[in-house]
């Protein structure tokens, strides 16, 4: 796991965990279109999953631990690979012209960093309610609707920027994971790149629909 390839594999696997989480998270968010009750019931169901076989919040807490571990490992691998890359090029070029768009380094490294900062804000807003007008002791749907109230349009704006960055991150990241795990090849590449693009686009649309609907008054 200490080699550069090992760290890449860690990034691929932890990235996959996060993508699976994002898909479920997005589907859950869409419940808001079926009304506040539907959304609250869903939030409640997450906490009581497999009850009474296991105590309250067992499944959710387990998933949260897995997710936090993935985030930490993903960031650890990214940082140590970025540092290795920095050391591999101590003298910079006077002139450097990207031949492949120069997309990846910016979107992946700085984009990743921005996403991490955003996640902190996002948790403070909708999970812990610290920066949410409704506070922690409120129904999840109330926090969501109040959080994206038209008067808080800037929150929606932050959210839109962050979600688009996630999409761009995944457009490269998902394909890259297949490449890193050695599952990409010439025949599959086209399909994998297309699939990564579609998945990213689907997540962006799915994540943007609820907050935009709330800010523009479609969902009350």
């Amino acid at each position, binding site marked *: 796991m200490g*080699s*550069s*390839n*090992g*760290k*890449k*594999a860690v990034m691929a696997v932890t990235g996959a965990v996060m993508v699976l989480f994002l898909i479920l998270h997005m589907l859950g968010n869409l419940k808001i279109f079926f009304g506040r009750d539907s959304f609250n019931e869903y939030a409640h169901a997450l906490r009581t999953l497999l009850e009474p076989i296991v105590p309250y919040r067992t499944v959710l807490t387990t998933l949260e631990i897995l997710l936090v571990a993935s985030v930490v490992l993903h960031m650890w691998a990214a940082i140590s*690979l970025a540092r*290795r*890359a920095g*050391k*591999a*090029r*101590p*003298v*910079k*070029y*006077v*002139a*450097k*012209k*990207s*031949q*492949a768009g*120069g*997309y*990846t*380094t910016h979107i*992946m490294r700085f984009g990743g960093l921005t996403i991490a900062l955003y996640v902190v804000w996002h948790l403070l807003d909708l999970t812990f309610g610290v920066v949410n007008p409704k506070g922690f002791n409120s129904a999840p749907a109330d926090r969501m609707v109040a959080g994206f109230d038209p008067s808080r349009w800037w929150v929606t704006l932050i959210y839109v920027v962050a979600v688009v960055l996630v999409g761009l991150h995944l457009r*490269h990241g998902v*394909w*890259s994971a*297949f*490449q*890193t*795990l*050695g*599952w*990409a*090849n*010439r025949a599959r*590449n086209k399909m994998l790149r297309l699939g990564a693009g579609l998945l990213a686009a689907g997540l962006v649309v799915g994540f943007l629909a609820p907050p935009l609907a709330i800010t523009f008054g479609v969902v009350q």
Partner: protein
Amino acid sequence: MNLTLRVWRQSGPTDAGRMVTYRVEDVSPDMSFLEMLDVLNERLILEGDDPIAFDHDCREGICGMCGMVINGVAHGEQRATTTCQLHMRHFEDGATITIEPWRAAPFPVVKDLVVDRSAFDRIIQAGGFVSVPAGSAPDAHSIPVRKEDADSAFDAATCIGCGACVAACPNGSASLFTAAKITHLSLLPQGQPERVSRAKAMVDQMDAEGFGGCTNTGECTAVCPKGIPLDTIAQMNSDYLKANTK
């Protein structure tokens, strides 16, 4: 053609180095990039200056000795072309051209545009070979190879070890080179016995030399004079992961 060159000059490994500007006049569009530098060097020698040091050998695009970063692109903007095969007709009259050596910690500058690429040799020594009993040559058709495998292996084998992939990579990674060498052997029957240990040995050597990791940016394959494809890197990753999960 009249050109202005901004060239990296560095008298030796410990010199700090700097960009120096030269005027070159009456350049023929039919000259190769290296011939244009030869013209400048002849003048520098006549004027009692130190000529610009650069690597070259075959000047036919097959040996992998030449290479410099021209206007920010390894081997220049002409695709699938080594510096020696790049011709001056691709430049505008009156242009200013920036010329720098490959930049990577494992490729230290020896002098001016010459870098030490022994790190590549050590990666090859770590596993870029097949062990076969030396003796009389076997019949060419004694081991069947599928046409597609033969083609892909041959494509990978066209890597000339020039190092442009490292120079272009924002991470200073040698993944494309190492992957080309690994893929070339791992697709052929002769390469099978050592397939997994080879990938591990070569990748570990690549790390030990101080090259960066791959982020699949594709800068390498874009500048590679032989068009080595990115899927060789997937092949390398696959072999390497097998070596570490066995």
